[in-house]
C-alpha cells in the first residue's frame, strides 16, 4: 500500500497540485507566475473576453479533439480485436514472436515514425507515386495535411495500446468454455456475443481507455500530419506554454479537462455498478 501511495503522491497528487495552483495565478510580462488569486483563467475558457458573452472557441476545439479520439478508438477496436484474438489463439511458442512484431515499431522514435508517414502520404510521396505509376489514378490524391491523415497517424500510434491489453484477456480465456458453448448448440455469432465478448471485456475496456484518453491530448500528430490548421486541445494547451507566455491559462485548460474526465469516468462507473 505504501509504495502505491508514494507513487500516487509523486506522479499524480503533486503535479496536479502544481497545475491547480498555477491555474488560479496570474503572470507577468515575461510569463513568470505571479501568485495572486484569480478566477480569470477559468472565466476565459467559457466567456469571450472581447464580447463578454459565452464563447465557444475552446469548446469547439475540445469537441473536435473528442471526435478525433473517438473515431481513432473505434477504428482501433475494429482493427485491433481480430489481431489480438489471432495472436492470443496462436500456438504458444509463436505468440511472443507475433507480439514482438506488434511492438517493434516502438523501438524507433515516435517522431521518426510520424515523419515516415509524411514521406508516404505527401503529394509527391510514395503512395501517390505508386498509384500514378500503376495508372490507378492520374492526378495525385490530397492525403497529407487533412483530417484523414491525422486519424491515420493516431490509429497507427495507438493501435498497439489496444492490442496488448486485449491480448492479455484473450490469452487467459479458457478454451473449454468456448467448446462448451458450441456443444450446447450456440452458433459462432452467439458464442462470440455471450461467451467470448463478456470474458474479454476487461481487456477491451482497458484498451479503450489507453487509446481514447491519450489521443485527446495528443498534439504532435495533428501538428505534423494535419498541418496544424485545425488545432486540437493538446495543441492549444501547448501554445499557452510555448507561444503565449500564459502558463496559468494553460493550467486552467488542463485542469478543466481533468475535471471533465473525472466526472465522466465516475458517472460511467456508477452506471456500471447499477447494472
Amino acid at each position, binding site marked *: 500500500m505504501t509504495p502505491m501511495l508514494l507513487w500516487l503522491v509523486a*506522479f499524480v497528487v*503533486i*503535479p*496536479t497540485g*502544481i*497545475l491547480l495552483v*498555477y491555474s488560479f495565478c496570474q*503572470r*507577468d*510580462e*515575461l*510569463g*513568470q*507566475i505571479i501568485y495572486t488569486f484569480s478566477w480569470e483563467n477559468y472565466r476565459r475558457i467559457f466567456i469571450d*473576453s*472581447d464580447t463578454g458573452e459565452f464563447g465557444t*472557441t*475552446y469548446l*469547439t*476545439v475540445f469537441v473536435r479533439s473528442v471526435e478525433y479520439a473517438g473515431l481513432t478508438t473505434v477504428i482501433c477496436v475494429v482493427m485491433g480485436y481480430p489481431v489480438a484474438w489471432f495472436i492470443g489463439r496462436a500456438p504458444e511458442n509463436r505468440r511472443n514472436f507475433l507480439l514482438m512484431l506488434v511492438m517493434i515499431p516502438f523501438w524507433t522514435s515516435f517522431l521518426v515514425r510520424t515523419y515516415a508517414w*509524411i*514521406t508516404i502520404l*505527401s*503529394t*509527391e*510521396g510514395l503512395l501517390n507515386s505508386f498509384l500514378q505509376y500503376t495508372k490507378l489514378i492520374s492526378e*495525385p490524391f490530397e492525403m*497529407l*495535411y487533412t483530417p484523414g491523415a491525422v486519424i491515420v497517424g493516431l490509429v497507427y500510434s495507438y493501435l498497439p495500446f489496444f492490442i496488448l491489453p486485449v491480448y492479455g484477456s484473450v490469452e487467459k480465456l479458457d478454451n473449454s468454455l468456448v467448446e462448451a458453448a458450441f456443444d450446447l448448440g450456440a452458433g459462432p455469432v452467439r458464442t462470440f456475443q455471450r461467451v467470448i465478448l463478456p470474458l474479454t471485456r476487461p481487456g477491451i475496456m482497458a484498451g479503450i481507455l489507453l487509446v481514447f*484518453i*491519450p489521443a*485527446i*491530448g*495528443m*498534439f504532435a500528430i495533428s*501538428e505534423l500530419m494535419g*498541418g*496544424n*490548421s*485545425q*488545432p486540437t486541445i*493538446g495543441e*492549444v*494547451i*501547448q*501554445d*499557452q*506554454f*510555448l*507561444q*503565449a*507566455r*500564459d*502558463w496559468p*491559462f*494553460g*493550467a486552467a485548460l*488542463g485542469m478543466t479537462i481533468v475535471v471533465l474526465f473525472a466526472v465522466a469516468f465516475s458517472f460511467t462507473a456508477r452506471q456500471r455498478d447499477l447494472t
Partner: protein
Amino acid sequence: MKSIRLLLAFALIGLVASSLPAQAQQKKKSVLNLFCWSEYVPQEVIDGFTKETGIKVNVENYASNEQMLAKLNAGASKYDLVQPSEYTVEGLIKAGKLEELNLGNIPNFKNLDPKYTKMPHDPENKYSVPWMVGSVGIVVNTTKVKEPVKTYKEVFSGKYKKRIVILDDHREIVSWALNSIGIPANDITPENLEKAKAVLKDWLPQVKVYDSDSPKTALLNGDVDLGIVWSGEAALLYKKNKKYTYTLPEDGAHQFIDSLAIPKDAPHKESAEKFINYILQPEVSLKISKEFPYTNPNAEARKLLTKAQLDNPASYPPGEPKLDTFKDIGKASADIDKVILDLKGK
C-alpha cells in the same frame, strides 16, 4: 496531457538545478552550458572552440524564443549563454534577467557591421551581441506559380487556396496582416488586433500547412507551391534548386536579430564571453554562414564569402533594404494567441 508532463519536468529541472550550484562552482573554468536554437550552431564551431580554449561545451536546444523563456522562467539557472531574438532580448533586459557583458573581453566585437550593433533593443550592446540576422518573406515555386507574388495580399488573393505554407508563429502572422493594411507591426492595440482579425479571417482558411520548424519540407514535397517563411529556409531551398525565389513583401517586411546573451547568475560567465569572442572571428563566422545561410552581421566575415553565397537573394536581399524589427509586447502575446485560435478553432 503533455503539458502536465512538461510542467513536472520543469519542476524537476528546477529542483535539480537549485541543488547543484556547489558542484557547478568547482568546474567554473572549463565548461560552457550553451542553450541555443536547433539547427543554428554548427558542430564544427563548437569543436573548434573546445580545441582552442579547452572549454567543454554542453549544448541544449530549443525551437522558439518562447520555449527558451519558459525554461528560464522555470528557474533553470545552469545556462551560461542563450540565443534570443531581439524582442526577447528586450523583454529579458526589462526583467533584469541578463548579465552585463564586458566588451573589453570581446575585442572581436569590432568585426561587426555597425548596422547591426547599437540597435533599439539593446542600444549600447550592454547585454547582447548579434549572431545572425534574417528576414521573413515570400518563397515561390516558380514552376507552379508563374506570375510574380510580391505582397502578403497577393499571397492571399484567393488564387492559391490550400497551396500555401506559413510559419506557425502567431506574432508573425498577425504582423503580416497589420502590414498589409498599413499598420506598423509593433502597434499591437486591441483596435488594431480587431482589424488584423478581419484580414486574417479571409487569409487563414487559404493556408494548408502551418510550420515554423521546417516549412521547406512541404514545399520540397510538392504539397504546397508558395509560402511565407524564414529567409534561412528560403536560402536553403534556393541552394537546392533555383526555381524557389525569395521576395521581401512590399507591404512591409521585417528582420530578426538573433543574438547571444548571458543569463543572470550564469555559472561560467567568462567561458561565455570567450565563446562570443570566438564566433566573432571572421573565419569562424564564415563556417556558420556556410551551414546556415542567414545574413551574416560580421563585416569581416562577409568579405570572405563566395560570390554564390552573396548572390543568394534570401541570404543577402538585393539593395540591402532597411527593415524593422519586433519590439517586446509582453502580455499582449496572449491576445495575439486568442486572435489566431478564434479563427483556427472554427
